[in-house]
């Protein structure tokens, strides 16, 4: 079956339908990772977006359910150059074709994903529609495209009930804003007892559990939409509990302490972004997935100082909070997909908790 990708700026790509044949309007973004398509598919931060993979050959090693970063794929649509006819890997349990169908994810294959990427690079992230309707015309769908916004997506992707991964090390409260599984896993693996809370959990409830540290996770959407969560984070900031935050969590902490965020032209999504540790000058290759960034100019030096920056475009990649046991990063030390170079940050967090525990 034919499928079409209609962009807000009038470009139309014709390809083959993959996955569900239902119509979807979404924000179109691209990801440059060469491996880890399943991790991308199941990263809740993509809720409200359709993702184009710049690597042209997708599905080569099939689906291994263990590699899913959440219970299901959250993205709205999937755009690829070519899906592999067969999967080949000793762990593969399913084909990507089935996976998309099973989870009702609409997609399009066989389009020039490089041309699409260049459009997004030049014009910035834009909305689009994936449809199998041969009669869909740009004029007809344009109002829908214009009207689309990702909205309050965090509510959709967060867990419904708190749950705990047992461990005898530090007790971590993980606020699930759309957390990738490997954040909890990275802490749990290091011996932490991790309790995962829904995004709507109040600061009081979290503090009452007397955690050794609080972890704010990644998540989807515009950080400024998360008004009530920001309020709770303000309260968490006031405590002296060590806090480590990733991605959306990092942005929310910045907003909670008076700084500003802005939308990047086309975001950072991939596994090759260099970030510089401003303290040591060392550069790490990081896994990234964000469309918004903290505005360095808006920082109050009395509150927060840049800790990491992106070597390519000098955007903010992390903050250290003055007089607080708080540090936050824009990139993904939990990797999955992508480089594991910055996983030591979890150790740093644990050390921070240990120091305070024994103080």
């Amino acid at each position, binding site marked *: 079956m034919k499928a079409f990708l209609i962009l807000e700026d009038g470009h139309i790509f014709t390809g083959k339908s993959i996955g569900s044949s239902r119509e979807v309007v979404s924000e179109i973004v691209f990801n440059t990772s*060469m491996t880890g398509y399943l991790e991308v598919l199941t990263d809740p931060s993509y809720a409200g977006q359709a993702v184009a993979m710049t*690597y042209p*050959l997708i599905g080569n090693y099939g689906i291994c359910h263990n590699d899913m970063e959440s219970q299901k794929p959250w993205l709205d649509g999937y755009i690829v150059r070519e899906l592999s006819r067969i999967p*080949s890997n000793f*762990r593969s349990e399913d084909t990507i074709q089935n996976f998309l169908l099973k989870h009702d994810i609409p997609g399009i294959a066989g389009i*020039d994903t490089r041309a699409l990427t260049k459009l997004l690079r030049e014009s910035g992230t834009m909305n689009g529609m994936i449809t199998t309707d041969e009669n869909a015309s740009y004029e007809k769908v344009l109002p829908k495209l214009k009207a689309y916004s990702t909205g309050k997506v965090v509510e959709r992707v967060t867990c419904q009930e708190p749950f705990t991964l047992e461990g005898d090390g530090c007790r971590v409260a993980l606020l699930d804003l759309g957390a990738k599984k490997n954040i909890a896993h990275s802490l749990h693996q290091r011996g932490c007892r991790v309790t995962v809370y829904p995004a709507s959990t109040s600061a009081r409830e979290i503090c009452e559990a007397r955690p050794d540290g609080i972890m704010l996770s990644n998540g989807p959407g515009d950080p400024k939409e998360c008004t009530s969560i920001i309020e709770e984070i303000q309260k968490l900031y006031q405590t002296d509990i060590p806090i480590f935050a990733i991605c959306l969590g990092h942005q929310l902490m910045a907003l909670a302490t008076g700084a500003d965020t802005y939308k990047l032209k086309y975001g950072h999504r991939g596994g*090759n972004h*260099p970030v510089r540790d401003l303290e040591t000058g060392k*550069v790490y290759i990081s896994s990234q997935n964000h469309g918004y960034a903290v505005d360095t100019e808006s920082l109050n030096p009395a509150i927060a100082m840049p800790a990491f920056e992106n070597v*390519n475009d000098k955007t903010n990649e992390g903050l250290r909070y003055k007089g607080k046991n708080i540090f936050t990063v824009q990139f993904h030390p939990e990797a999955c997909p992508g480089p594991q170079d910055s996983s030591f940050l979890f150790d740093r967090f644990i050390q921070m908790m240990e120091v305070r525990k024994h103080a």
Partner: protein
Amino acid sequence: MPKNPEIKKVLVIGSGPIVIGQAAEFDYAGTQACRSLKEEGLEVVLLNSNPATIMTDKDIADRVYIEPLTADVVEQLILKEKPDSVLPTLGGQAGLNLAMELEERGFFRKNNVRLIGTTSETIKKAEDRLEFKSTMEKIGEPVAASLVVENVEDGIVFSNQIGYPVVLRPAYTLGGSGGGIAHNQAELEEILANGLRLSRVGQVLVERCIAGWKEIEYEVMRDGAGNCITVCNMENIDPVGVHTGDSIVVAPSQTLGDKEYQMLRTSALNIISELKITGGCNVQYALHPESFEYCVIEVNPRVSRSSALASKATGYPIAKVAAKIAIGYTLDEIPNAITGQTMASFEPMLDYCVVKLPRLPFDKFISAKRTLTTQMKATGEVMSICDNFEGALMKAIRSLEQHVDSLMSYDFTSLSKEEILNRLNVVDDRRIWLIAEAIRKDISYEEIHEITKIDVWFIDKIAILVEMEETLKGRELTVELLKEAKRMGFPDNVIANLTGRSEKEIRAMRYENAILAAYKMVDTCAAEFAASTPYYYSVFGSENEVVKTRDRKKVLVLGSGPIRIGQGIEFDFCSVHCTWAFSKEGYETIIVNNNPETVSTDFDIADKLYFEPLTPEDVESIVRLEKPDGAVVQFGGQTAIKLTEALMKMGVPILGTSAENVDAAEDRELFDQILEDCRIPRPKGHTVFTAEEAKKAANELGYPVLVRPSYVLGGQGMQIAINDRDVEEFIGIINRIAQEHPILVDKYLQGKEIEVDAVCDGEDILIPGIMEHIERAGIHSGDSISVYPARSISPGVKATIEEYTRRLARSLHVIGLINIQFIAVGDEVYVIEVNPRSSRTVPYISKVTGIPIVPLATKVILGNKIRDLGYTPGLQPEADYFAVKMPVFSFEKIRGADIGLGPEMKSTGECLGIAKTFNEALYKAFLGAGICLPRHKNMIMTVRDEDKEEAVEIAKRFEALGYCIYATKGTARVLMEADIQVRLTRKLEQESPNILDLILGHKIDLVIDTPSQGIEHSHDGFVIRRNAIETGVNVLTAIDTARALVTSLENTDEKALTLIDIAQI
């Protein structure tokens, strides 16, 4: 960290002559690094014995020494030039080994010279088997169970312990020389004994066999501050067991999930950090196909063939960045030259698929075993890029120039299922074609995988191509089907054959339906950032993104494709210089080439680079878009020349000598006419098509005769026949290599062989110098020792040569370069070959005369006159020193190849000896070629009857030098009669101890064995020569070479060599 201010003058060590396992990739890396250092204002001193390289140009380094790569020479050079630093990581294993030797001598410390790029501790940790193993164990990186042994007995004990098969890897050898897999004790004993001998330190690693595991490589970079990145990873389609240089390689890996990819990436970064490498490094892994278990196979703490491939596959200039790191910069301070926006501290992201195929020399060594093992055999490689794997594979196949254009090109249709299954057990260079046939015969993926261990993902891709063949054969060719076939990389001619139409019809159908090649960029970042110096690859069914340029005149430079015997880096040297010259004249330059090892495919050589096959169809697609004002074909060897006709049909003007005149030199009848008109004699000969005609011609001319196909390079298929039986056999061989052109039978003249390269502007000629061959006619010019200036011919002969060159160049209307080979018999001069194009000797003669022939020829092509360019036409004055070009062979790498020299070229590379006296030049040339005598002062002589007289004189001279001479009966008798103390040795077929035991006993330095002319019907000589080569003994097969060697030994003392800076010439 900024540049280290203490570094001001750097000695860069190159890799020496091209041999299998160490080829053009080091010229590419070295050239890039030297340019990168000069860009920083540093003074660069270069040492490399290879004159065919671009790095040994005076434009590339400030001081250039084309001298033998020995520790003594490096010492002398350091004392003379006083560099403060030495950069050894760009010259391959040769450069690294030299640096280690000097470090061990304590020379660097004593002279306050620092090793930059990487420390000697690092080199030791990575290269020494024991240290490597303990380092890996320390950081918890698994290696296959292994033991370093220094004798065969220990090897046997350990192998019994871990179980056969075991892999054997000698320490400090390149390209896996002397290594192999032993399946039982007998094989172990043989391979191990040999490996111990070839290892520089007498060590061989015996290890658990992990053959069949996935072979994965990572190219990683690290700077002095400890920042690390991965440039790319690569997956070998051929699992562990085949040397990566002989494997089909794909980048990035295709069958690894993110968990496996990151596991190995993290491991590679841990390793490079622990080894404290500053620069580039290659880590090879074996990954268990059904678990996360892996082993580190090898670490190369330097740039390598794989890093050249990774650079071209990603656009990340590893050597350039490595050089900057060596002088102190950190990755985040070095700009990414392709994007101009990002820094070198990022990881390239590919949005395409890259396939590399090895170029194996079995078309040259017909008798050689085609089996692929851990010993590398490929002389070169091709790379192709596409947005799908099928297209990349198809493009790579036709880039090979081995008469292959699809998966049907080797015909296995007559094999039964069982035969196919049997043959799949042996890995050879035709395996993917055999797999295609297996699929056609309905052998299941699982069965193929079970035998070959090739991942089914790749088998499925081959199946997709086979299915397309079937569809094209069986179904109506619709526009949709044609689109799909083109997307998968099927060339028009293959589609035409399968659909029963003509190529023209297919082409017309494509143009009518706009099914045209589009070009995408290699930009290092998957389009995330705009690129400033990208290069291009073709795809079908996507949007074109080549930027249209129309402001300057455009020239298309056709490259020379993969490195093969007969067409080496000399042609890349010519292509690059031609490109630079056009650029200086204000032209926009466009290069088309597919060889990832070369300088010409570096991102910043031409204004635009198309990484594409060099076939008429692929070139036409580029021409359609670029509409060049002209094309130059005379610098790209036979590869480019073969495209002349097609370019003319496309309406592209050929710049320089016209196509008709190129043809005239190749067409026997036309050429004879020209010679006659010019009153120039040539050896008598005939053009024939059949064996009968050939025999008739041979008898009329009188034996011996030369038999060869027309339109060949490197004397491929050329042989000297001494009787009818030889003629029949040769014609049979020639006809096996698809031959559309006639066969030439010429009278064989034994005389002095002389060669000139000349520039002609249509009226005047310029001959930089006359080169004379040491070996008399009958041995291919590429395999002969060549001497400039010619020293044994009379002024009269020189004048005749000049005059003949002028007449020929004029009557062929040569505009640009011409290469002519002559034979002088007494004062009589005959022309034996004319090539109206650049030749193998162009870089050599340019460097030793200081006359930049390629830029000159380029200017002439653009309409300038020699006289206006500041040169006096004619033969230039001779230099006051001698330059000797010595061929270098890779025979030890090719099991079963006959090493006897003849009209067919066999050498893979060359080195130079340059000195005030002929003898010193000769000595340097031998030294550079690795012929290092004496150790034991024992030698064997066994010569053919024609050479016996001359052998006496040579033997006497060796005897005077203190050599003990062994000889077989016939030779011994002649020598004894001349009062030479000779020891008789038994022939091969006689009982032990015989000549073979002598060779295998390792007490012999040199074997002089001249095979009889014609086909050698006895197998003895072959066995002796092979055994000698594989035992690491020097073997000379021409009496003239032997005389040259003894002359050089008589006259020179290595300690007193004079070093000459070529840049001053």
